[in-house]
Protein backbone atom coordinates (compact mmCIF):
# COMPACT_ATOMS: atom_id res chain seq x y z
CA UNK A 1 0.00 0.00 0.00
CA UNK A 2 1.26 3.41 -0.90
CA UNK A 3 1.70 4.97 2.50
CA UNK A 4 3.42 2.01 4.12
CA UNK A 5 7.20 2.02 4.75
CA UNK A 6 9.12 0.86 1.71
CA UNK A 7 12.67 1.01 0.36
CA UNK A 8 11.20 2.89 -2.60
CA UNK A 9 10.74 5.85 -0.28
CA UNK A 10 14.48 6.36 0.14
CA UNK A 11 14.29 9.78 -1.49
CA UNK A 12 12.24 10.92 1.48
CA UNK A 13 15.37 10.62 3.61
CA UNK A 14 16.64 13.72 1.81
CA UNK A 15 13.43 15.78 1.91
CA UNK A 16 14.14 18.68 4.26
CA UNK A 17 10.64 20.25 4.21
CA UNK A 18 9.04 20.81 7.62
CA UNK A 19 11.95 19.00 9.25
CA UNK A 20 13.80 19.47 12.53
CA UNK A 21 17.46 20.60 12.71
CA UNK A 22 18.37 17.05 13.75
CA UNK A 23 17.06 15.79 10.42
CA UNK A 24 19.16 18.36 8.57
CA UNK A 25 22.14 16.88 10.42
CA UNK A 26 21.00 13.40 9.40
CA UNK A 27 20.60 14.38 5.75
CA UNK A 28 24.02 16.07 5.63
CA UNK A 29 25.63 13.11 7.35
CA UNK A 30 24.14 10.66 4.88
CA UNK A 31 25.10 12.68 1.79
CA UNK A 32 28.66 13.28 3.03
CA UNK A 33 29.01 9.62 4.00
CA UNK A 34 28.20 8.49 0.47
CA UNK A 35 30.33 11.25 -1.06
CA UNK A 36 33.31 10.47 1.15
CA UNK A 37 33.06 6.74 0.40
CA UNK A 38 33.16 7.48 -3.33
CA UNK A 39 36.13 9.77 -2.70
CA UNK A 40 37.89 7.05 -0.67
CA UNK A 41 37.60 4.64 -3.58
CA UNK A 42 38.85 7.25 -6.06
CA UNK A 43 41.67 8.34 -3.75
CA UNK A 44 42.93 4.78 -3.34
CA UNK A 45 42.63 4.36 -7.08
CA UNK A 46 44.69 7.37 -8.07
CA UNK A 47 47.36 6.47 -5.54
CA UNK A 48 48.16 3.57 -7.85
CA UNK A 49 50.10 6.15 -9.86
CA UNK A 50 52.64 6.02 -7.04
CA UNK A 51 53.38 2.43 -7.96
CA UNK A 52 54.08 3.44 -11.54
CA UNK A 53 57.02 5.59 -10.58
CA UNK A 54 57.83 9.29 -10.25
CA UNK A 55 56.71 10.26 -13.75
CA UNK A 56 53.17 9.05 -13.34
CA UNK A 57 52.72 10.54 -9.87
CA UNK A 58 54.24 13.94 -10.61
CA UNK A 59 52.17 14.39 -13.76
CA UNK A 60 49.11 13.47 -11.72
CA UNK A 61 49.99 16.21 -9.22
CA UNK A 62 50.05 18.85 -11.97
CA UNK A 63 46.50 17.77 -12.84
CA UNK A 64 45.49 18.12 -9.19
CA UNK A 65 46.63 21.73 -9.05
CA UNK A 66 44.06 22.75 -11.67
CA UNK A 67 41.20 24.90 -10.26
CA UNK A 68 38.48 22.41 -11.15
CA UNK A 69 40.23 19.68 -9.23
CA UNK A 70 40.91 21.96 -6.29
CA UNK A 71 37.22 22.82 -6.10
CA UNK A 72 36.50 19.11 -5.94
CA UNK A 73 39.02 18.75 -3.15
CA UNK A 74 37.40 21.60 -1.26
CA UNK A 75 34.09 19.76 -1.50
CA UNK A 76 35.74 16.66 -0.09
CA UNK A 77 37.24 18.62 2.79
CA UNK A 78 33.85 20.26 3.41
CA UNK A 79 32.22 16.84 3.38
CA UNK A 80 34.79 15.48 5.77
CA UNK A 81 34.37 18.33 8.23
CA UNK A 82 30.56 18.16 8.13
CA UNK A 83 30.55 14.38 8.52
CA UNK A 84 33.07 14.56 11.36
CA UNK A 85 31.17 17.21 13.34
CA UNK A 86 27.90 15.36 12.84
CA UNK A 87 29.56 12.20 14.02
CA UNK A 88 30.73 13.99 17.14
CA UNK A 89 27.13 15.13 17.70
CA UNK A 90 25.95 11.51 17.46
CA UNK A 91 28.69 10.24 19.79
CA UNK A 92 27.86 12.95 22.34
CA UNK A 93 24.12 12.27 22.16
CA UNK A 94 24.52 8.52 22.38
CA UNK A 95 26.54 8.90 25.54
CA UNK A 96 24.05 11.21 27.15
CA UNK A 97 25.72 14.53 26.52
CA UNK A 98 23.62 17.39 25.23
CA UNK A 99 20.53 15.39 24.27
CA UNK A 100 18.20 18.04 25.63
CA UNK A 101 20.19 20.87 24.04
CA UNK A 102 20.77 19.01 20.80
CA UNK A 103 19.52 21.87 18.59
CA UNK A 104 21.96 24.33 20.12
CA UNK A 105 24.84 21.89 19.88
CA UNK A 106 24.01 21.19 16.26
CA UNK A 107 24.00 24.91 15.49
CA UNK A 108 27.37 25.38 17.18
CA UNK A 109 28.90 22.41 15.37
CA UNK A 110 27.57 23.59 12.01
CA UNK A 111 28.93 27.06 12.65
CA UNK A 112 32.34 25.56 13.47
CA UNK A 113 32.13 23.50 10.28
CA UNK A 114 31.42 26.56 8.16
CA UNK A 115 34.33 28.40 9.75
CA UNK A 116 36.59 25.40 9.14
CA UNK A 117 35.51 25.09 5.52
CA UNK A 118 35.94 28.82 4.91
CA UNK A 119 39.43 28.65 6.39
CA UNK A 120 40.33 25.74 4.12
CA UNK A 121 38.97 27.53 1.07
CA UNK A 122 41.05 30.55 1.99
CA UNK A 123 44.23 28.52 2.40
CA UNK A 124 43.64 26.48 -0.74
CA UNK A 125 42.77 29.26 -3.13
CA UNK A 126 44.23 32.46 -1.77
CA UNK A 127 47.42 31.49 0.03
CA UNK A 128 49.03 29.27 -2.57
Amino acid at each position, binding site marked *: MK*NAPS*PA*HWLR*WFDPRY*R*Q*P*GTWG*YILNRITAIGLTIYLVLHLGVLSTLAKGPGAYDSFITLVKSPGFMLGELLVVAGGIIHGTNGIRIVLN*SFGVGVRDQKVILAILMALSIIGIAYFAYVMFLVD
Partner: protein
Amino acid sequence: MKNKPVPEKWTVTFIVSRQKGQGKRHFEQFNLEVDPEEYVLDGIERIWAFHDRSLTFRHACHHSTCGACGMLVNGVEKLTCITPIRSVTKDSGTLRVEPLRNFPVVSDLAVDMASFYLNLEKAQFSQVAPIQNASLPFEDQSMEGDLERLVDCIECGMCVSACPAAHTSSGYLGPGALAAFQHSLNQKNDPRLYDLVDCHDGPWRCHNAFECSAVCPSNVDPAWRIMNLRRKIVSHRLRRLFKRREAAKP
Protein backbone atom coordinates in the same frame (compact mmCIF):
# COMPACT_ATOMS: atom_id res chain seq x y z
CA MET B 1 -20.25 45.87 31.98
CA LYS B 2 -17.98 43.87 29.75
CA ASN B 3 -19.66 42.20 26.78
CA LYS B 4 -18.92 38.57 25.99
CA PRO B 5 -16.46 38.54 23.07
CA VAL B 6 -18.03 37.62 19.76
CA PRO B 7 -16.24 34.63 18.22
CA GLU B 8 -14.29 35.49 15.09
CA LYS B 9 -15.33 33.94 11.86
CA TRP B 10 -12.66 32.85 9.43
CA THR B 11 -13.08 31.31 6.02
CA VAL B 12 -10.57 28.51 5.61
CA THR B 13 -10.10 26.14 2.70
CA PHE B 14 -9.46 22.64 3.99
CA ILE B 15 -7.48 20.54 1.53
CA VAL B 16 -8.13 16.98 2.60
CA SER B 17 -6.41 13.83 1.38
CA ARG B 18 -8.87 11.24 0.10
CA GLN B 19 -8.23 7.63 -0.74
CA LYS B 20 -10.76 4.83 -1.00
CA GLY B 21 -9.80 1.18 -1.42
CA GLN B 22 -7.25 0.72 -4.18
CA GLY B 23 -8.09 4.09 -5.71
CA LYS B 24 -5.58 6.83 -6.24
CA ARG B 25 -4.84 9.27 -3.45
CA HIS B 26 -6.09 12.76 -4.27
CA PHE B 27 -6.98 15.98 -2.52
CA GLU B 28 -10.43 17.53 -2.15
CA GLN B 29 -11.15 21.07 -1.11
CA PHE B 30 -13.80 22.18 1.35
CA ASN B 31 -14.51 25.81 2.19
CA LEU B 32 -15.49 26.17 5.83
CA GLU B 33 -16.47 29.00 8.09
CA VAL B 34 -14.64 28.34 11.32
CA ASP B 35 -13.95 29.97 14.62
CA PRO B 36 -10.12 30.15 14.73
CA GLU B 37 -10.18 29.02 18.37
CA GLU B 38 -11.71 25.74 17.27
CA TYR B 39 -9.50 22.79 16.59
CA VAL B 40 -8.53 21.20 13.29
CA LEU B 41 -10.46 18.09 14.31
CA ASP B 42 -13.61 20.19 14.68
CA GLY B 43 -13.18 21.32 11.10
CA ILE B 44 -12.74 17.74 9.87
CA GLU B 45 -15.84 16.69 11.76
CA ARG B 46 -17.83 19.51 10.25
CA ILE B 47 -16.72 18.44 6.77
CA TRP B 48 -17.95 14.95 7.56
CA ALA B 49 -21.23 16.17 9.07
CA PHE B 50 -22.25 18.76 6.49
CA HIS B 51 -20.23 18.17 3.34
CA ASP B 52 -19.22 14.56 2.82
CA ARG B 53 -20.37 11.68 4.99
CA SER B 54 -17.90 9.34 3.29
CA LEU B 55 -14.88 11.09 4.87
CA THR B 56 -13.16 8.55 7.14
CA PHE B 57 -11.06 9.64 10.10
CA ARG B 58 -10.37 8.59 13.69
CA HIS B 59 -11.31 10.51 16.78
CA ALA B 60 -12.41 9.67 20.29
CA CYS B 61 -11.58 11.57 23.45
CA HIS B 62 -11.05 15.06 22.01
CA HIS B 63 -8.62 15.91 24.79
CA SER B 64 -5.23 14.44 23.80
CA THR B 65 -5.54 11.27 25.88
CA CYS B 66 -6.53 8.57 23.43
CA GLY B 67 -4.05 9.31 20.64
CA ALA B 68 -6.57 8.52 17.88
CA CYS B 69 -6.63 11.80 15.93
CA GLY B 70 -3.01 12.18 14.83
CA MET B 71 -2.77 13.56 11.29
CA LEU B 72 -0.39 15.50 9.07
CA VAL B 73 -1.44 19.17 9.18
CA ASN B 74 0.40 21.27 6.58
CA GLY B 75 3.05 18.58 6.40
CA VAL B 76 3.69 18.30 10.15
CA GLU B 77 2.38 15.68 12.56
CA LYS B 78 -0.23 17.14 14.90
CA LEU B 79 -2.80 15.85 17.35
CA THR B 80 -5.74 17.53 15.67
CA CYS B 81 -7.99 17.68 18.74
CA ILE B 82 -5.61 20.12 20.43
CA THR B 83 -4.36 22.01 17.39
CA PRO B 84 -6.23 25.33 17.18
CA ILE B 85 -6.97 26.41 13.63
CA ARG B 86 -5.39 29.80 14.24
CA SER B 87 -2.05 28.12 14.94
CA VAL B 88 -1.82 26.51 11.50
CA THR B 89 -3.48 28.92 9.11
CA LYS B 90 -4.97 32.40 8.70
CA ASP B 91 -8.24 33.93 7.54
CA SER B 92 -8.82 33.08 3.84
CA GLY B 93 -5.93 30.65 4.14
CA THR B 94 -5.61 26.96 3.38
CA LEU B 95 -5.20 23.99 5.67
CA ARG B 96 -3.81 20.74 4.27
CA VAL B 97 -4.76 17.59 6.16
CA GLU B 98 -3.25 14.19 5.33
CA PRO B 99 -3.02 10.84 7.07
CA LEU B 100 0.06 9.90 9.10
CA ARG B 101 3.09 8.71 7.14
CA ASN B 102 4.67 5.28 7.34
CA PHE B 103 1.39 3.46 7.92
CA PRO B 104 -0.79 1.91 5.21
CA VAL B 105 -3.87 4.04 4.57
CA VAL B 106 -7.11 2.23 5.34
CA SER B 107 -9.35 5.00 4.07
CA ASP B 108 -8.89 8.77 3.68
CA LEU B 109 -7.33 9.95 6.95
CA ALA B 110 -7.40 6.66 8.85
CA VAL B 111 -4.29 4.45 8.80
CA ASP B 112 -3.59 0.87 9.83
CA MET B 113 -1.80 1.08 13.18
CA ALA B 114 -1.43 -2.69 13.74
CA SER B 115 2.35 -2.84 13.23
CA PHE B 116 2.81 -0.03 15.73
CA TYR B 117 0.74 -1.74 18.42
CA LEU B 118 2.49 -5.06 17.79
CA ASN B 119 5.90 -3.42 18.18
CA LEU B 120 4.79 -1.76 21.41
CA GLU B 121 3.65 -5.13 22.68
CA LYS B 122 7.12 -6.60 22.14
CA ALA B 123 8.43 -4.26 24.83
CA GLN B 124 6.05 -5.71 27.44
CA PHE B 125 6.01 -2.49 29.41
CA SER B 126 3.53 -1.72 32.12
CA GLN B 127 1.24 1.26 31.57
CA VAL B 128 1.42 2.06 35.27
CA ALA B 129 4.76 2.40 37.00
CA PRO B 130 6.38 4.06 40.02
CA ILE B 131 7.10 7.72 39.41
CA GLN B 132 10.89 7.27 39.38
CA ASN B 133 10.55 4.72 36.58
CA ALA B 134 7.89 6.44 34.53
CA SER B 135 9.19 10.00 34.57
CA LEU B 136 12.19 11.30 32.72
CA PRO B 137 15.12 11.86 35.10
CA PHE B 138 15.13 15.59 34.46
CA GLU B 139 11.42 15.94 35.21
CA ASP B 140 10.18 17.29 38.49
CA GLN B 141 9.72 14.30 40.79
CA SER B 142 9.37 16.28 43.98
CA MET B 143 6.21 14.41 45.02
CA GLU B 144 7.37 12.06 47.71
CA GLY B 145 6.07 8.70 48.70
CA ASP B 146 5.24 5.48 47.00
CA LEU B 147 3.42 6.99 44.07
CA GLU B 148 2.65 5.48 40.71
CA ARG B 149 1.60 7.11 37.49
CA LEU B 150 0.56 6.25 33.96
CA VAL B 151 3.41 6.34 31.50
CA ASP B 152 3.17 9.23 29.08
CA CYS B 153 2.76 7.40 25.78
CA ILE B 154 -0.75 7.73 24.32
CA GLU B 155 0.17 5.46 21.39
CA CYS B 156 -0.75 8.02 18.74
CA GLY B 157 1.97 6.85 16.32
CA MET B 158 3.03 10.36 15.33
CA CYS B 159 6.62 9.57 16.26
CA VAL B 160 6.75 6.76 13.70
CA SER B 161 5.15 9.04 11.11
CA ALA B 162 7.84 11.67 11.61
CA CYS B 163 10.83 9.32 11.77
CA PRO B 164 13.02 9.32 8.59
CA ALA B 165 14.25 5.79 9.28
CA ALA B 166 10.67 4.51 9.37
CA HIS B 167 10.08 5.74 5.80
CA THR B 168 12.03 2.87 4.32
CA SER B 169 11.87 0.07 6.84
CA SER B 170 8.70 -1.60 8.04
CA GLY B 171 10.86 -3.82 10.23
CA TYR B 172 12.24 -0.92 12.27
CA LEU B 173 10.77 -1.01 15.77
CA GLY B 174 10.32 2.74 15.68
CA PRO B 175 10.68 5.49 18.30
CA GLY B 176 7.47 4.62 20.15
CA ALA B 177 8.36 0.96 20.63
CA LEU B 178 11.99 1.78 21.49
CA ALA B 179 10.82 4.27 24.10
CA ALA B 180 8.57 1.48 25.42
CA PHE B 181 11.58 -0.85 25.66
CA GLN B 182 13.41 1.80 27.64
CA HIS B 183 10.38 2.12 29.94
CA SER B 184 10.27 -1.63 30.31
CA LEU B 185 13.94 -1.87 31.24
CA ASN B 186 13.41 0.88 33.81
CA GLN B 187 10.51 -1.06 35.30
CA LYS B 188 11.98 -4.52 35.25
CA ASN B 189 15.55 -5.16 34.24
CA ASP B 190 14.71 -8.38 32.38
CA PRO B 191 17.83 -9.40 30.40
CA ARG B 192 15.69 -11.08 27.74
CA LEU B 193 14.49 -7.63 26.70
CA TYR B 194 18.05 -6.82 25.65
CA ASP B 195 18.04 -9.75 23.25
CA LEU B 196 14.84 -8.42 21.71
CA VAL B 197 15.93 -4.84 21.26
CA ASP B 198 19.63 -5.29 20.47
CA CYS B 199 19.07 -6.14 16.82
CA HIS B 200 19.34 -4.30 13.57
CA ASP B 201 15.73 -3.11 13.87
CA GLY B 202 16.51 -1.61 17.25
CA PRO B 203 18.11 1.64 18.34
CA TRP B 204 20.95 1.26 15.79
CA ARG B 205 18.52 2.15 13.02
CA CYS B 206 18.02 5.57 14.62
CA HIS B 207 20.18 8.30 13.14
CA ASN B 208 19.58 11.13 15.58
CA ALA B 209 17.06 13.16 13.59
CA PHE B 210 15.05 13.94 16.75
CA GLU B 211 11.80 14.29 14.75
CA CYS B 212 10.02 11.94 17.14
CA SER B 213 10.54 14.05 20.25
CA ALA B 214 9.57 17.17 18.33
CA VAL B 215 6.14 15.83 17.39
CA CYS B 216 5.33 13.78 20.50
CA PRO B 217 2.25 15.43 22.06
CA SER B 218 2.71 13.69 25.36
CA ASN B 219 6.17 14.33 26.79
CA VAL B 220 7.54 10.87 26.08
CA ASP B 221 10.73 12.30 24.50
CA PRO B 222 11.41 9.08 22.53
CA ALA B 223 14.72 10.42 21.20
CA TRP B 224 16.07 10.91 24.71
CA ARG B 225 14.87 7.43 25.61
CA ILE B 226 16.54 5.92 22.53
CA MET B 227 19.88 7.52 23.48
CA ASN B 228 19.42 6.20 27.01
CA LEU B 229 18.50 2.77 25.63
CA ARG B 230 21.75 2.70 23.66
CA ARG B 231 23.72 3.29 26.86
CA LYS B 232 21.73 0.65 28.70
CA ILE B 233 22.49 -1.92 26.00
CA VAL B 234 26.19 -1.03 25.86
CA SER B 235 26.68 -1.30 29.61
CA HIS B 236 24.63 -4.50 29.81
CA ARG B 237 26.59 -6.17 27.02
CA LEU B 238 29.94 -4.99 28.42
CA ARG B 239 29.05 -6.24 31.89
CA ARG B 240 28.01 -9.60 30.45
CA LEU B 241 31.22 -9.80 28.45
CA PHE B 242 33.40 -9.20 31.50
CA LYS B 243 31.32 -11.50 33.67
CA ARG B 244 31.87 -14.27 31.13
CA ARG B 245 35.58 -13.56 31.16
CA GLU B 246 35.54 -13.75 34.96
CA ALA B 247 33.59 -17.01 34.88
CA ALA B 248 35.93 -18.50 32.28
CA LYS B 249 39.01 -17.82 34.37
CA PRO B 250 40.37 -20.99 36.04
